[in-house]
């Protein structure tokens, strides 16, 4: 049984449903110490005094550490190392850490943290990215050579300014997308100890256990090979655990704990304060077309609010520029991007990684163009959808596959679209209904300049079952379960014959992070290689037991290797018992292919630009607007997706639904209320994510597709679904209420104003 109709129960479902799965947060060794951080609480200031005597004297306190206790560079960051582990002289946002406390209990920890007396001399803050780039703006990093300009990039194709001047029609807009918190269920946390052998042994809720070792080692002056990181299943990550959260602080604590276990758990408010966020962005863009709607040129500039530290801001902006033309055929483009340092919360990785921001802008421009030309927005998109073999907005021809046109066509055949006129007519009193349909795309993998690699290890156990050594954390997206399905198919075994070892730098082979819609593709390919090696091995070893001189004719079946010529069979359990451990292991590795002849543009981007593989989709949102309150309810949501062949329909559907829900949150609910670097919505009573009652059923339509280089024909699709709801809801709100949405999230107040109120 294969293909999208097959039902594979998720390998993680039962253990999670009964509460048996042990997340990092569940690891609390008896007698462990508790570590916590005192945070600045001011957005930009010099530290003028730090009195920790009272904290140190608090009963139950083991140590209070400050900048002076940090060995190494004291600088963390995935690529660009500009974020202090503990701040010594200056704090650059309200969540910056100034002191680390280790205590025997959480109560003693809380008391000691409250007794740290930190004195600050406030510095002028900079909270608007545009203002940050003014010549006379206060600098977030006075030593940075480009002032507050963290990163700049330009992508260009053809001659956009000239082409734009010749266009029959142009539309322009300034579009804003907000900062967004990941709101993963499992808070940033970990447990660590220094073993007698000098190994720093850590269990962390992390998306990048292998890379964490280097980030910690750099920051604290350690040898990365003395650090072991284990990454159990995560209770959500979405990019927010890609890059150090607790890691460096926890490692520093463990170095000062006398060999005892130390646990650190941020609470929800601390996570809002100190965790990474999706970058707020402002995009000024102009789209030009012929009178018949044929797109000609796109120009514009994108400005990202990086907060005070680089994280992957430049790389995120690069992806935004790469996707700024959408899945459309645009011959001439010129787009600039900038990232500004500010004293706002730290911008970082988030599902949709820059793509979400520029997707909103291009989709809004397409709607503006449709309005200008009196065209149906869906028809205009179909007319301009990028076909197979055509270069995209930066001049790369992506790998062929089903694209925006196929995805859009699938959604347009859904009753939510074909029966929309009747649905709108049946609106109850005080209710206006509208429907919007937009396209989406998201590249897969790291892109050029950074090997998107994974190595897989597969073990035949002595009992004749298998052990998969997973190297890319499963943060809930289901990759670990997909690996079981893949290996079971490849080796003709039942899924129950496979156990998963979750990422552990001691026992698993290195791989990149769980990110970039890459995990199932890259590790899956490596795993299938290991499965092929295992199959060959099992045949060859079984041939010995079966006295068969032609191993190729042997057949693998659940628990057995059989010789069809004689009918004789050898159980895998017997092979497992016979073989020494070295002979029971198979390994392989895979590196994702990159664009072979990249266009000469985006020269500023050394890492992660451009991309070769794309998944596509389309999204329909049907909204109901209450005329009296301006409240928006999403009546229907339909998402189509083209992501190669489908290994698990359930898995793809769950990713589409989860991504769409997160996109809906960004569009209608999640308002950080940022003011002077402070999140007005700094807890879950004010930062609202949609609940089950706020979400409609989300229909997922699979578009026939194939990716020949993918494991079993699949491509990654964990991110693409997040891009649809923002622009589709915006289009639907114009249909329902005539509101021109340029800024997310849309508030009831926006709608009440647009409707003019019944008075």
């Amino acid at each position, binding site marked *: 049984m294969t293909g999208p109709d097959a039902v594979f129960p998720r390998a993680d479902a039962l253990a999670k449903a009964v509460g048996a799965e042990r997340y990092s947060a569940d690891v609390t060794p008896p007698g462990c110490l508790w570590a916590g951080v005192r945070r600045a609480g001011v957005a930009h200031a010099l530290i003028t005094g730090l009195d920790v005597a009272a904290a140190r004297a608090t009963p139950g306190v083991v140590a209070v550490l400050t900048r002076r206790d940090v060995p190494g560079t004291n600088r963390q960051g995935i690529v660009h190392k500009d974020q202090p582990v503990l701040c010594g002289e200056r704090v650059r946002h309200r969540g910056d850490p100034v002191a680390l406390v280790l205590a025997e209990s959480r*109560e003693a920890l*809380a*008391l000691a943290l*409250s007794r740290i007396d930190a004195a600050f001399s406030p510095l002028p803050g900079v909270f608007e990215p545009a203002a940050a780039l003014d010549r006379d703006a206060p600098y977030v990093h006075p030593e940075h050579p480009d002032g507050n300009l963290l990163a700049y990039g330009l992508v260009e194709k053809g001659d956009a300014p000239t082409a734009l001047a010749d266009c029959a029609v142009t539309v322009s807009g300034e579009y804003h997308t907000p900062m967004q918190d990941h709101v993963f269920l499992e808070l940033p946390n970990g447990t660590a100890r220094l073993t007698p052998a000098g190994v720093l042994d850590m269990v962390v809720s992390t998306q990048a256990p292998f890379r964490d070792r280097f980030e910690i080692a750099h920051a604290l002056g350690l040898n990365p090979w003395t650090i072991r990181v284990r990454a159990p299943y995560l209770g959500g990550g979405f990019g927010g655990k890609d890059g150090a959260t607790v890691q460096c602080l926890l490692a520093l604590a463990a170095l000062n704990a006398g060999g005892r276990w130390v646990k650190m758990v941020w609470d929800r408010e601390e996570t809002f304060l100190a965790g990474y966020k999706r970058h707020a962005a402002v995009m000024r863009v102009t789209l030009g077309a012929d009178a018949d709607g044929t797109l000609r040129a796109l120009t514009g500039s994108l400005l990202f609010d990086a907060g005070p530290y680089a994280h992957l801001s430049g790389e995120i902006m690069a992806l935004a520029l790469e996707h700024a033309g959408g899945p459309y055929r645009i011959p001439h483009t010129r787009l600039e991007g900038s990232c500004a340092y500010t004293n706002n919360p730290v911008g970082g990785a988030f599902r949709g990684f820059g793509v979400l921001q520029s997707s909103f802008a291009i989709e809004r421009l397409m709607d503006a163009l449709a309005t200008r030309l009196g065209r149906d927005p869906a028809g205009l998109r179909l007319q301009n959808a990028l076909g197979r073999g055509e270069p995209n907005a930066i001049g790369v021809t992506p790998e062929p596959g089903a694209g925006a046109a196929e995805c859009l066509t699938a959604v347009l055949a859904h009753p939510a679209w074909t029966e929309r006129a009747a649905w709108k007519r049946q609106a109850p*009193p*005080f209710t206006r209904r509208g429907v919007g349909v937009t396209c989406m795309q998201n590249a897969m993998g790291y892109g050029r300049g950074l090997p998107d690699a994974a190595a897989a290890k597969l073990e035949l156990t002595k009992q004749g079952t298998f052990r998969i050594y997973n190297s890319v954390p499963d943060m809930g997206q289901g990759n670990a379960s997909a690996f079981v399905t893949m290996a079971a198919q490849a080796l003709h075994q039942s899924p129950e014959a496979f156990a998963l070892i979750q990422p552990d730098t001691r026992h698993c082979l290195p791989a990149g992070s769980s990110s970039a819609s890459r995990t199932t593709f890259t590790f899956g390919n490596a795993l299938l290689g290991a499965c092929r090696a295992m199959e060959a091995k099992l045949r060859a070893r079984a041939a010995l037991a079966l006295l068969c001189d032609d191993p190729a004719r042997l057949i693998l079946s659940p628990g057995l290797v059989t010789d069809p010529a004689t009918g004789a069979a050898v159980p895998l359990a017997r092979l497992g018992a016979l073989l020494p451990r070295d002979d029971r292991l198979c390994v392989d590795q895979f590196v994702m292919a990159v664009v072979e002849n990249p266009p000469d543009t985006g020269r500023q981007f050394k890492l992660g630009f451009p991309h070769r593989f794309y998944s596509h989709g389309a999204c329909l949102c049907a909204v109901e607007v209450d005329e*009296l*309150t*301006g*409240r928006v*309810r999403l009546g229907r949501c339909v998402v189509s997706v083209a992501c190669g062949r489908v290994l698990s329909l359930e898995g793809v559907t769950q990713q589409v639904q989860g991504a769409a829900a997160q996109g809906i949150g960004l569009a209608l*609910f999640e*308002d950080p*209320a940022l003011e002077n670097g402070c999140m*007005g*919505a700094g807890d879950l*009573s*004010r930062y*609202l994510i*949609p*609940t*089950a*009652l*706020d979400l409609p059923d989300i229909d997922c339509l699979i578009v026939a597709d194939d990716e020949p280089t993918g494991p079993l024909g699949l491509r990654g699709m964990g991110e693409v679904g997040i891009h649809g709801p923002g622009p589709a809801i915006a289009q639907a709100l114009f249909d329902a209420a005539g509101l021109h949405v340029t800024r997310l999230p849309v*508030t*009831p*107040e926006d709608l*009440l104003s647009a409707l003019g*109120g*019944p*008075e």
Partner: protein
Amino acid sequence: MIGAVYCPTSLEALWPLLADGAHVLAGGTDLLVAKRGPASCAVALLEGIGELAGISEGDGLIRLGAMASHATLARHPLVRQHLAVLALALETLGSPPIRAMGTLGGNIATASPAGDTLPALLALNARLELASAKGRRVVPLADFLLGPGRTALAAGEIIAAVVVAPPAPAALQHFEKIGRRDALAIAVASLAAVIATDAAGTVTEARLAVGSLAPTARRLPAAEAALTGQRLNRESLTRAAAAIREAVSPMTDVRASAAYRRQAAGNLLLRLTPQP
């Protein structure tokens, strides 16, 4: 942080605990959030005192025990049949777990301007039965709510019950809350209405109350007067809506601006406009 926990099984056992400074813990949905800090706080649970949880009818009055949970009240036949405005309000309160734990007395004692049951209880002319070591007294809810988090509750006193005279069976009972989402949402604005009409459709008595639009949930006498003696139609409701906007004193916060709240407050009444 919760320190010592006491579980008295009678009011007589409760009074000395309160005298010693223990906090009253009913459902805990507010208190456990408020007391998360390092300071230790002793609490006396009310859940062991059976007489506080009953729901009963007698002498033409319905008596709702202060310890009745929102979920229990929302599905109780007396509430559903006679106090629909309260049932509607309870259905919008928090989420299933909060409705299972939170109590009517707790929602009143917290005295949030956004307390979901408060406009409904005001529109029902609810009275509170307060108990202490000194005995009992009855106070109208409207006199009990003094400000955000401030009530007429004396030291050592608890809310024992809410007493309501059920509206005439034919009276219109209506509640609507504007939240920023459909569950676990603090009210941006809410309106409760209990409107009695005669056989000709003329309003004989209108009781209107709002939440999240003033320092306390409050009644709206001018809007009530604008409806009384009128038929419920677009004109009368529009006039009353204007009176609501005039009467409220909303604030701007992370959930909504004052201007939006004022506009929406009036609009909520227009929901009652008869449809052709």
